[in-house]
């Protein structure tokens, strides 16, 4: 007993020393970046800045946003690194973000930054909508792959389409707001009325429709390209389709939390988050990154994604979010709807 105690005490002390030696500042970083990428991001960052320790607080976009809003009067985070821009806009309207122009801001694609100067947030990589189509199950049912958003309303797909619920999923909201922008408001709602007839389920998370398509639980999953590429890499019989009308997108972005006590370190991290080195790091999973010309093609990603990205009006989306969700909920979120 005593020996074990001493041993573990020793380990604890040396671990303590190790952290003390290298990490003078600890940052609490809120993020919605995929769990498996987090360690890699922190590791790469620490190669350049060993003196800053990153303490991740990770959850899905909705939960992290809810958490940040709940903590509005008592922010726990120093920094946000990797959260949907749409969410950052919400935080901005609450006055929770500290405007800051990180070094190297001029290299960033103007789409990938807050319009204000200095910007309240800067983008990392884009995150695009797309359709996951299960070729095996589609074949069994004698279906053909859709090529456009409009295709999804065809009667043959009835009960075979799954999409995320915009009220609980960032991806879902992205889809809805992009349709309203692509088709115009009235046509957009008409489109969704038609689509609704084909929907088997509205999921709570954005990646689930694609995973359901991957496992054949549904044929068509409205999701995002990144998820589709991963499932395909895992061996799922799916096709990732970029609809011809164009695709909605959002970006993972970063921002300082107003009033952080560790401004210096937080700015260092924010500066680093838009360096070419960081962009290369994002490129491992994301086909589109903030600095033009850096991205290399990502395996299993469909072609022509950058061109298909619509000119997304984030301000419009943020300022109309509440109204859009109210309308959507009123139209589709009842029990009497068709189910697969």
């Amino acid at each position, binding site marked *: 007993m005593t020996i074990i105690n001493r041993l573990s005490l020793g380990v604890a002390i040396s671990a303590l020393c190790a952290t003390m030696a290298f990490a003078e500042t600890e940052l609490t970083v809120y993020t919605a970046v*995929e*769990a*498996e990428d987090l360690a890699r991001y922190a590791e790469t960052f620490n190669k350049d800045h060993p003196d800053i320790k990153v*303490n*991740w*607080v990770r959850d*899905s976009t*909705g*939960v992290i*946003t*809810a958490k940040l*809003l709940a903590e509005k*009067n*008592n922010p*726990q985070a120093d920094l946000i690194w990797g959260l949907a821009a749409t969410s950052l*806009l*919400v935080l*901005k*309207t*609450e*006055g929770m973000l500290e405007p800051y122009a990180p070094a190297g801001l001029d290299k960033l694609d103007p789409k990938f930054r*807050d*319009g*204000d100067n200095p910007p*309240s947030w800067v983008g990392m990589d884009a995150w695009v909508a797309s359709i996951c189509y299960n070729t*095996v199950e589609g074949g069994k049912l004698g279906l053909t792959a859709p090529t456009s958003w409009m295709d999804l309303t065809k009667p043959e797909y009835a009960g075979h389409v799954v999409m995320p*619920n915009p*009220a*609980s999923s960032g991806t879902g909201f992205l889809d809805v707001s992009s349709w309203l922008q692509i088709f115009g408001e009235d046509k957009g709602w008409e489109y969704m009325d038609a689509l609704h007839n084909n929907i088997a*389920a509205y*999921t*709570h*998370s954005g*990646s*689930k*429709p694609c*995973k*359901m398509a*991957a*496992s*054949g*639980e549904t044929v068509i999953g409205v999701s995002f390209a990144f998820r589709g590429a991963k499932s395909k890499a*895992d*061996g*799922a*019989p799916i096709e990732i389709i970029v609809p011809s009308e164009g695709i909605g997108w959002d970006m993972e972005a970063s921002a300082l939390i107003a009033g952080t006590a560790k401004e210096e370190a937080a700015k260092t991290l924010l500066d680093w988050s838009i360096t070419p080195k960081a962009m290369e790091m994002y490129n491992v999973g994301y086909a589109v990154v903030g600095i033009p010309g850096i991205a290399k093609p990502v395996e299993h990603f469909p072609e022509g994604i950058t061109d298909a990205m619509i000119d997304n009006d984030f*301000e419009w989306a*943020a*300022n109309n*979010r*509440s*109204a859009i*969700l109210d309308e959507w*909920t*009123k139209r589709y*979120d*009842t*029990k009497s*709807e068709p189910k*697969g």
Partner: protein
Amino acid sequence: MTDLSLPAGPAIKLKLDRDGAIKRLFMGIIALYLVVALALPLYTMLSKSFVTYSFELDRYEFQVSDEAGVFGDPVTAAALNQQLGVFTADDLRSNSDGRLTATDFFPDFSFRSPVKYRLRGTTANAPYLVGLDLQNTTEWREYDSNTFRRINLRPVTSVGPQNYVEYFSNPTLFSSIENSVFIAAVSTVLTVVFAFGFAYALNRSCMRFKGFFRLVAMMPILVPSLLPGIALIYLFGNQGMLKSLLMGQSIYGPLGIVIGSVFFTFPHAMIIITTALSIADQRQYEAAESLRASKWRTFWTVTIPGARYGLISAAFVTFTLVITDFGLPKVIGGQYNVLAIDIYKQVIGQQNFEMGAVVSVILLIPAVLAFYVDRQVQKKQVSLLSARSVPYQPRPNRRFDALCLGWCALMAVFIVGIIAICQYAALIKFWPYDLSLSLNNYAFDKMDGGGWAAYWNSIKLAGLTAVFGTVIVFTGAYMVEKIDGFKTGRGIFQFLAMLPMAVPGMVLGLAYIFFFNNPANPLHVIYGTMTILVVSTVTHFYTVGHLTALTALKQIDAEFEPVASSLRQPFYRLFTRVTVPVCLPAILDISIYMFVNAMTTVSAVVFIYSTHTALASVAVLNMDDAGDIAPAAAMGMMIFYTNAGARLLHLFASRRILGRTQAWRLR
């Protein structure tokens, strides 16, 4: 001599001795715990549900220039609205994310015009957005037309019942109440019927394998409520093994929720009904037999009335469990909205905390009602129990015993099947395209949900909950039961201790966000830590532990305390030397109850866990949410094995400890 009356004067009060002071201090501390961990958060939540957002138009003042840039008189938005009538009172109600476009007050607005606008707040709190920039000032700010079109007014908070009005006028949200009640009612009927059959077979037949069936019936308690949902997807989902059995029906929706609910509420109902059946009186049956009543008649005139309190109690417990459960509808509910899901959607999906609070308050109503009825029934059952009766002895009857065996086997196949499917699913590489076995799904670190760390966190939480929960609950119960005087205090304490039973876990969790995540609250330091999870879990499961402790304490001679104080011994010496050792079996029961529930609970912690304190049960939910169903099943099975292991350990530990310390029980 008879018409004596009490002379005037103050009633004699005993001086407080050190013992009394310590006891009161302890009870005060634990009561304070319950107030802080329960009453205050609920109160905060209740008040939050009355926080409403609306646009206060008299707080904004505009000035408009002509084309030459000369400004006219200031005019409030309220005055403009009165003049134009663009917004009705209804339009001015909003939520925390509401926007009101400023240009709507100016019908002639054109963004190309050289007209300029000024805007200011007339009071300190008049927020508006320029684009996405928050402004809140009483200074005049000037904007050109092109900027002015990007101005949105923001709502401010006030207090009123508006959220409730809105809730009940929203057919979508309102239909959730119907759905919840429907699901709970159907599940209750099925569970009670199934569990009654099972309990009846265990109590009234001479079938074989009773011990085995008893064990199997308890299995669902060891897993999170959403695990059966996952199994049902593998069985009846679109790629399910037995999909054809549903004949085109979808498992996603009420059907899935009901089957899953029957699974996870089965043991609860079974325990209660077994207790009710086991108090039957042999003599009544003998009487019925001597009156030549048929078996069927005896069943309806003796068995059912005798067990009626148990049946009612089981029904209400099942009803409450189903209506407050959140994991199952989340996993397999499809588009079927229920109250518990609404809370989750409002809070996590839309960040509409106020509406989340409203739904929580509504969810409290059926739970409180069910709880109240259950308490009333329990009281009656107790008086039934105390009657002296001759326990019923079943006689062998081949046909009946075979029937019972068949029924129990059916239920056992259902329960074991669900769990086995989960284990199988967890080991499949890529359902349904690659059925080779692999441990890939146990690589939790590569998935959402918190990885293996979540599993270890859960064990830590369960351990801490078991230790602290048991200490707090038992000490609290001791103070209530054995303290003398101080009646009002004890009454309040007893009420607080019973309250958690009626508070759904999600409601408690949401209340914790409101209460603890407030910088003005000195306790907010525990927010996001393991401590708040332990507090939440202990509080959520307080009542059952409290009742167990009370029952054990009531069986102890009430004269121990007077004897100890006459021997001038402090109460804590009696407590440690006698009370605790005598109650050890109950104490061990409370701790395993706390442990198992801390491992499986989702609802009590889903709002308050943080990344560092991710939990296995929540990981199951989140992995399923992300579509990683097989890993979710794998994690669910880890919880199952851990709980099964803990139970075994508890069994051995109890035997050993009892063997050593309870020698006195043997004559």
